[in-house]
């Protein structure tokens, strides 16, 4: 092989490789085996992060001076259903949060009962998957207390959260927003059922009357308008099987990064 033909060969190989790479990346994004491989990366990330954070490490907390003047409201700003409107009109007097599934004592708590339990107040940073952050002061009932009252059965592994905001056409399996957390994250001390933001009753745009705060997770793991907490062993049979509304659309179930 002569010098020039050899060089042509190398140049063509490099050009072909980079074209294949860039052109192929998008096609790969639609291939099942490839997205499965990326899914195993998610497990690796989750395990590695848990190795460092463990079940107890606390998210940073901030001072009053750090609170954002305007906390960005994101996702559903008003569920807009007649049922929700009626609840809002009566100041959520009849709103109930139920705890069901793999528990010894199913619960149905009114807002007054939820607020009668010990509360935790925390000034934390909300991190959206899009990239922005806002600091706010949240007050609510530690979920660990609520779950302890319901007494999870030994085979309970995940807490599913079912919400009042419709996301898709009626009749879809995930018509309403839903999410899930591993039980360990659900009983983390900063995981609370929040009913106040910055000293005020939770406004509708932020998830009135009660939303989840899971401070070591991204925003989409912290559902608003929570109606039901269902403990399960496995969520593969629920809706599209990925453990949450956004997960069903391709976002990772692990939302710690």
């Amino acid at each position, binding site marked *: 092989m002569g010098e020039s033909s050899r060089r042509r060969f190398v140049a063509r190989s490099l050009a072909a490789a980079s074209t294949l790479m860039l052109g192929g990346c*998008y096609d790969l994004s639609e291939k099942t085996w490839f997205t499965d491989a990326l899914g195993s990366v998610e497990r690796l990330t989750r395990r590695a992060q848990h190795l460092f*954070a463990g079940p107890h490490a606390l998210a940073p907390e901030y001072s009053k001076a750090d609170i954002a003047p305007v906390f960005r409201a994101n996702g559903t700003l008003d569920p807009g259903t007649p049922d929700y409107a009626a609840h809002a009109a009566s100041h959520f007097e009849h709103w109930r949060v139920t705890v069901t599934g793999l528990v010894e004592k199913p619960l149905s708590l009114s807002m007054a009962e939820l607020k009668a339990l010990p509360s935790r107040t925390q000034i934390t940073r909300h991190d959206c998957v899009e990239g922005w952050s806002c600091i706010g002061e949240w007050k609510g009932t530690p979920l660990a207390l609520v779950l302890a009252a319901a007494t999870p059965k030994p085979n309970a592994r995940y807490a599913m959260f079912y919400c009042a905001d419709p996301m898709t056409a009626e009749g879809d399996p995930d018509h309403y927003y839903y999410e899930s957390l591993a039980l360990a994250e659900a009983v983390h001390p900063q995981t609370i059922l929040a009913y106040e933001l910055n000293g005020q009753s939770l406004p509708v745009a932020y998830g009135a009357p009660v939303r989840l705060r899971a401070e070591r997770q991204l925003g989409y793991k912290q559902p608003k308008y929570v109606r039901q907490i269902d403990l399960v062993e496995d969520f593969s049979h629920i809706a599209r099987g990925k453990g949450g509304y956004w997960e069903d659309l391709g976002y990772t179930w692990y939302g710690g990064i």
Partner: protein
Amino acid sequence: MPTHWKDAALKALGIVGKPRDFFYRHRAWVRVAHWLNAVCLAILLMSGLAIFNAHPALYIGNGSDFQHPVLSLTAMQDREGSLTGYTWIGGHPFNTTGVLGASKENGQWTMRGFPSWATLPGPQWLAMGRQWHFAFAWILVINAILFFAYGLWSGHFRRDLLPTGRDIAGLPHEVVQHAKFHFPRGEAARRYNALQKLAYVFVIFILGPLIVLTGLTMSPTMDAAFPILPWIFGGRQTARTIHFLCAFSFLGFFLVHIAMVVLSGTWNNLRSMLTGWYAIGKENDHG
């Protein structure tokens, strides 16, 4: 490898039978790490831009002051429906239609931070951009850990990258030589010059660790594990801004690197990073 195979391979690559002096410049582990890095950095940059496009604005501090981003890419639509893209730097708009803020995606004008040719995936798809980014971040970090371990153990860092007193003393002269596009030839090309050493030291020991740590700082779980992370970088949003600047510093390094490869002999450099063999040849050899 039997000797005649090796001879045939070297001959095919043009490494024997010429009045040139070749020397073995890059060992196999350096070459593998180099190309793996090249693939990772390309994918990380492009998927990073796809993620950035989900909220194309940068801030200082822990939270986002939406009214005062340090940089943002926006688009405005006029009454006829045509789009104008703007890049805002510290409150000053610059018209960047076609590239930043508004660009064509499959022939259609679209509001998007970076254009589709620069992002992975091309269409706006945050979930997939994140999956690509984290997968290749793992490969980059594992590659870097092995590279660091072997670089320290083998003496590569100390022998080849650590600038010597003579390097520092000769720096002004070397800057002038580079500015005149005079590059070391002959025996001097056997070792990295001071500018090369400083560039590689900066990228390997400062830029690399910085981009990984600022990336980790954006993870809420990592901030719980290591609260010092957001603290040292002055907040999560500052970390995100530094991460972005690091990415473009890598791009800048890449462009200078490619320019130097071309100016100092494309084929000779490419051969040495593919096969290890570098021709030092004559003073005027252009490889």
